[in-house]
């Protein structure tokens, strides 16, 4: 078990390495002079020279990469071009709404999708199953911003139950926080739960064909016990895998949802810095998000051993 965790940790190093190289090259793959791109269309030559100097673009490329990587390891993500503040600090300031939104969405998605998928598998072929599958395809097809605006129109503008946009930090109390993130969470959870429901249905259906399920029924166990204790538990590995993979989708969704609902999180920071061509922030955000994605999937891999003792490494 311990050896497996160490091996799995080592396996993430090349992945993170490729991400780091890619993020570094991002600036250098720009057609033309990256400093000129950052400076914008109306920059004077001396402004461009200043940016070149600040980004260290006058050094040879391997030196640049070395310097960049060394400061990265020390937690230094560079300085924002626009605001002149350290990128790490800017990211830290924006972390709370994004983390809360992502966590709330994942919890809500699991609460919706796992029961839905299990019932669909149990009632396979009936109208319940078809309804769940329709929800799964539709949830995949309706873009988050379309769904977000529909929710906002119904619940904020027509019914006036919830605030239209904006975010109340956790320091202001739990009530306002929940009010401000309810709609974004629902909008995001539709997409994620569509994916999880699909996989849950497929893997529970497969397990339901197993001999031990027939045995469980034959010895007279209640339907619920069979479904939860026998079927769902054995179907857990693919479900947990897809929850890990769906974090990638979730991150993309967070970026869009934060723009729709005007939440001051990492997603908004990303979009704002793209409009301002603030490359150090773009690089930093991609690194943080990718790192989180890799970390979640690492944890998922390790969780397997808890869900399925047959898996031994």
């Amino acid at each position, binding site marked *: 078990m311990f050896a497996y965790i160490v091996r799995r940790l080592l396996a993430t190093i*090349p*992945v*993170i*390495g*490729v*991400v780091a*190289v*890619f993020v570094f090259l*991002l600036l250098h*793959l*720009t*057609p033309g002079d990256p400093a000129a*791109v950052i400076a914008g269309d109306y920059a004077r030559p001396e402004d461009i020279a200043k940016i070149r100097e600040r980004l260290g673009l006058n050094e040879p490329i391997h030196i640049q990469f070395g310097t960049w990587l060394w400061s990265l390891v020390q937690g230094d993500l560079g300085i924002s071009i626009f605001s002149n503040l350290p990128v790490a600090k800017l990211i830290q300031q924006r972390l709370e709404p994004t983390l809360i939104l992502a966590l709330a969405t994942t919890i809500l998605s699991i609460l919706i999708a796992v029961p839905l998928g299990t019932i669909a598998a149990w009632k396979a072929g009936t109208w319940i199953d078809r309804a769940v599958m329709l929800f799964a*395809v*539709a949830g*995949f*097809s*309706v*873009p988050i*911003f*379309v769904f977000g*605006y*529909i929710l*906002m*129109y119904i619940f904020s*503008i027509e019914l006036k139950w919830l605030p*239209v946009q904006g975010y109340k930090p956790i320091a202001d109390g739990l009530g306002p926080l929940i009010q401000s993130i309810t709609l974004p969470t629902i909008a995001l959870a539709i997409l994620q739960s569509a994916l999880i429901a*699909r*996989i849950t249905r*497929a893997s529970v*259906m*497969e397990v339901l064909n197993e001999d031990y399920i027939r045995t469980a029924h034959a010895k007279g166990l209640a339907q619920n016990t069979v479904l939860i204790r026998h079927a769902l538990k054995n179907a857990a590995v693919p479900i947990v895998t897809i929850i890990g993979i769906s974090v*990638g*989708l979730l*991150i*993309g*969704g967070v*970026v*869009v949802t934060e*723009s*729709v609902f005007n939440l001051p999180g990492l997603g908004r920071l*990303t*979009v704002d810095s*793209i*409009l301002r*061509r603030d*490359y150090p922030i*773009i690089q930093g*955000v*991609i690194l943080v*998000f*990718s790192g989180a*994605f*890799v970390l979640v999937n690492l944890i998922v891999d390790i969780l397997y051993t808890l869900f399925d003792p047959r898996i031994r490494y």
Partner: protein
Amino acid sequence: MAATTSEIISAAPAGRLSRFGHYVRRNPVVMVGLVLLAILVLIALLAPWLTVDPLQLSPIDRLKKTGVGDHLFGTDMYGRDVFARTLHGSQISLVVGLCVAALSTAVGLTIGLVAGYVRLVDAIVMRIMDGLMAIPGVLLAIALMALTGASVQNVILALTVIEIPRVVRLVRGVVLTIREMPYVEAAISIGTSFPKILIRHILPNTVAPLIVQATYICASSMIFEAVLSFLGAGTPPEIPSWGNMISEGRAYFQIAPHIIFFPGVFLAVCVLVVNILGDGLRDTLDPRLRRRM
């Protein structure tokens, strides 16, 4: 679904393509999907004749409600006809969806075939693909768009880059199983050349899963295009794409929700149709995949 003997006999001498046509006709979901897609393509192609100029500004007609005057879907904040813009928007979505699906499968197939067959290439290529897949798709696309600037071609290229690793994975997986098959071994033993083995013996096995994957890529690329345009990093703002319409209309959302409602609904329906087509194709072409997804 057991085929009767007569069906097997009648299908046996037919070529691969006609057998495919036979399966498609038998599956109602695929038929419905194809017909709806054909209608959407028709709308996109005929948009210039069905509607007025989508770029025509008309300051006196600003923010007209749906169904007022000549404007079936109303007008936007510059007085442009929302019906005309929505119909024209389907062109961008379909072009982006189809181009990304075609390009990413073509490139992914080539890389995947070689990676699956040549171990040294495999080790290097798959590390790069794993790395690319660790970057969330939307972010990677946004970053590429920020570098290259807004244009339809750049949107297609950026989305192709984020889809390629998934195609490579799929193709490589197929190649890894097929190359251990006795008939591939037999082909090697009689001295069949390496390119011939890849093209004649391995490539045909990737076709069915690739068609399914390409459909899903087409659907997700249409959403991605809209997302990029919505965030201001997609098609140039003067082009009436659904994402641009929603992005521009959001400031007027509270007083004129129809500006973003119509492109939103068209986008959702369009993606839904392609996704349903993908599900139908998956069930028809590769019943084994059904269990996995």
